[in-house]
C-alpha cells in the first residue's frame, strides 16, 4: 500500500456528511408491506457506498426515497443540509437501462436535464460542456449520433454524461452496468471510479454483484429482507485507486466471502 492511497481512503471516511438518513421507514399503504424499517445512514463527501442484498430487501425503495421520488413513511432524509422533498438538482441518477431518448442525439440527450430545468437556451449553452463530458467518457466523435447507433456500453457512457451535466453533489446509481457483459462492466466500473475521484463525487450504488460492490466502495451496506433493513455496514480498506487485479488478492476474497456469508444468512430468514 502506498501512503497516498491510504490518505485518499481516510479522507473519504472523514469528509463532511452529505446525505443523512435518520430512522427512515417505508410502509406501503396498499398491502401494509414494510419495505424499509428504521434505516439510518450517513454518506460523507467523496465517499463511495454500495448497498447489496437479495431481492425484496428494500434497496430500490431506499434509493427512490433518497432521490425524492417517493416519500418515506417515517424518518428524515437530509441532503446538503436541506430536507429531501421531491426531485433535487444536486442529485444525479442512473439506471440499469441507459434510457436515452431515440429522437435526440447523444449531446441532446446529455443536455436534457438542463433543457428541462432551465429551458432550451440554457441547454444550448451547456452543449460545450456536454462535448467535454463525452470526451471524458471516450465518446468523442459520437456527439451527433442517435442512440440507436450506440452499443449498450456506449449508451451507458452517454447516460453517465447526462447524470454529470448538472454537476450533482451525489450520484445515485441503480445497478447501472448490470445489463452489460462482464468485460464492459469491469471497464465501466473503473471509469466510474475515475470520474467519481475527478469530480470528488459522493456515490451511492445499488448492486447485485458482491465483487462490484467491493472493488468500488469505501463502505458496503448489507441489507436483509422482510422487513427491509440494514444488517451490517462493512468497511472496505483496500487502497485507492482500485485496479481490476486487486480482485485476485486475498484481502478482496476475504471481504467477498464475508459479505456472501451474510447474504446467505439473510436468505435463510
Amino acid at each position, binding site marked *: 500500500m502506498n501512503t497516498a492511497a491510504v490518505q485518499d481512503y481516510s479522507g473519504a471516511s472523514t469528509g463532511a456528511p452529505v446525505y443523512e438518513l435518520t430512522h427512515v421507514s417505508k410502509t406501503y399503504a396498499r398491502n401494509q408491506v414494510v419495505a424499509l424499517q428504521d434505516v439510518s445512514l450517513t454518506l460523507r463527501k467523496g465517499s463511495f457506498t454500495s448497498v447489496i442484498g437479495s431481492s425484496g430487501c428494500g434497496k430500490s425503495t431506499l434509493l*427512490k426515497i433518497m*432521490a*425524492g*421520488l417517493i416519500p418515506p413513511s417515517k424518518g428524515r432524509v437530509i441532503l446538503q443540509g436541506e430536507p429531501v422533498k*421531491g*426531485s*433535487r*438538482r444536486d*442529485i444525479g*441518477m442512473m*439506471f*440499469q*437501462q441507459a*434510457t436515452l*431518448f*431515440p*429522437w435526440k442525439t447523444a449531446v441532446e440527450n446529455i443536455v*436534457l*436535464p438542463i*433543457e*428541462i*430545468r432551465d429551458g432550451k437556451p440554457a441547454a444550448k449553452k451547456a452543449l460545450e460542456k456536454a462535448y467535454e463530458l463525452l470526451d471524458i467518457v471516450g465518446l468523442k466523435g459520437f456527439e451527433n449520433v*442517435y*442512440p*440507436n447507433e450506440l452499443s449498450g456500453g456506449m449508451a451507458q457512457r452517454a447516460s453517465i454524461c447526462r447524470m454529470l451535466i448538472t454537476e450533482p453533489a451525489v450520484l445515485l446509481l441503480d445497478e447501472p452496468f448490470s445489463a452489460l457483459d462482464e468485460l464492459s462492466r469491469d471497464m465501466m466500473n473503473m471509469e466510474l471510479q475515475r470520474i467519481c475521484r475527478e469530480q470528488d463525487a459522493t456515490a451511492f450504488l445499488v448492486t447485485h454483484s458482491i465483487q462490484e460492490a467491493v472493488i468500488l466502495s469505501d463502505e458496503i451496506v448489507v441489507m436483509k429482507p422482510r422487513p427491509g433493513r440494514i444488517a451490517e455496514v462493512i468497511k472496505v480498506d483496500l487502497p485507492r485507486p482500485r485496479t481490476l487485479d486487486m480482485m485476485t488478492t486475498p484481502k478482496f476474497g476475504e471481504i467477498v466471502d464475508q459479505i456472501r456469508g451474510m447474504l446467505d444468512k439473510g436468505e435463510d430468514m
Partner: protein
Amino acid sequence: MTDLQANSSSSLDTEQDTVWEQEIAFIDSVPRWIAMTFVFLVFIGTWQLVTSFGLVSPIILPTPLETLKDMIFVGQNLATGGYMLGALWITIQEVIYGFALAIVIGFSLGVLVGETAFGEKAVMPYLVAIDTMPKVAFAPLFVAWLGFGIESKVALAAFIATFPIVVGTAAGLHAADENARMLFKTMGASRMQTLIKMKLPMGLPQIFTGLKIGAVGVMAGAITGEFLGGGKGFGELIRVAASQLNTPRVFSLILYLSVVGLALYLMVQWTQRKVVFWQKESVGSYDA
C-alpha cells in the same frame, strides 16, 4: 479428443473446407415479383375461366376484359375532368375532413384517457362501450341531424376513425417505461414537460398505428355514409351502377376508390417514417 483425431485422419479429408449449402424450400425462394405476378395471373385466369364457361351470369360477374375496358373508360372520364372526377373529389373531401376531425377528437380524447386518471376511470368505459357498437348503424342518425350533404358523411367517417386514434394515443402514452418516468421525475420535469418531451414522442409508434387503422376506417365511413345518405360522391356512383346491374362499372369504381384509400394510408406511413425516424422495423405493420 483421441476419438475425433482418429476419425478425421481415417475417413475425412481434413484439407477440405466444410462449406455446405443450407436447403431452402422452392416456395420460399421465389422472388417477390414473380410470386406476385403468379398470384395475379391465377386470379385473372380463374376469373376468365369462370366467365367464359358461363358458370356465372355476366350480370353478376363480367369478364376480366369487359372490366378492364370499363376501367379505361372511367379512367378517361376522371382524367378529362368528367362528372366522375367531381364525384371523386366530393368523396376525397369527405375523407380529408373526416380524417382531420378524427385526428383532433381522437388525439384529444386519447390524451385525456391516457394521461389522466380521471379520463381512464370516467371516460374510457364509455368509449369502450361505444366502440363495441356497430358504428355504421349510426349513419341514419347523422343523416337526420346533418342532412344529405357532405356533413353527414364527414361525421360518420370521423366517428369510425376516432376510436383507433383514441386507443393508439392512450396506449402510446402508457408506452414510456418506468425508468424514463423516474428519470424525468429526478430532472424535476413538470407534468406538461413529461407529456410533451417524453411520453408523446415515446408513444408515436402506437399513435401512428392508430392513425393507420383510422385511415382505413375513414374511407369505409365516407362510402357507407354515401350509400345510406345519398349525395353526389363516388359511393353514390357505385350505388347507381349496382342498381343498373352495371357490374363492370362497380368493379372499376371500387378500384379507383381503393387508390384513394391506399394513397391516404401511404401518406400516413410516409409521415411516420419521417417523424418516427428512429423506429426502424415493423413500420408497415399494425402491431408497431
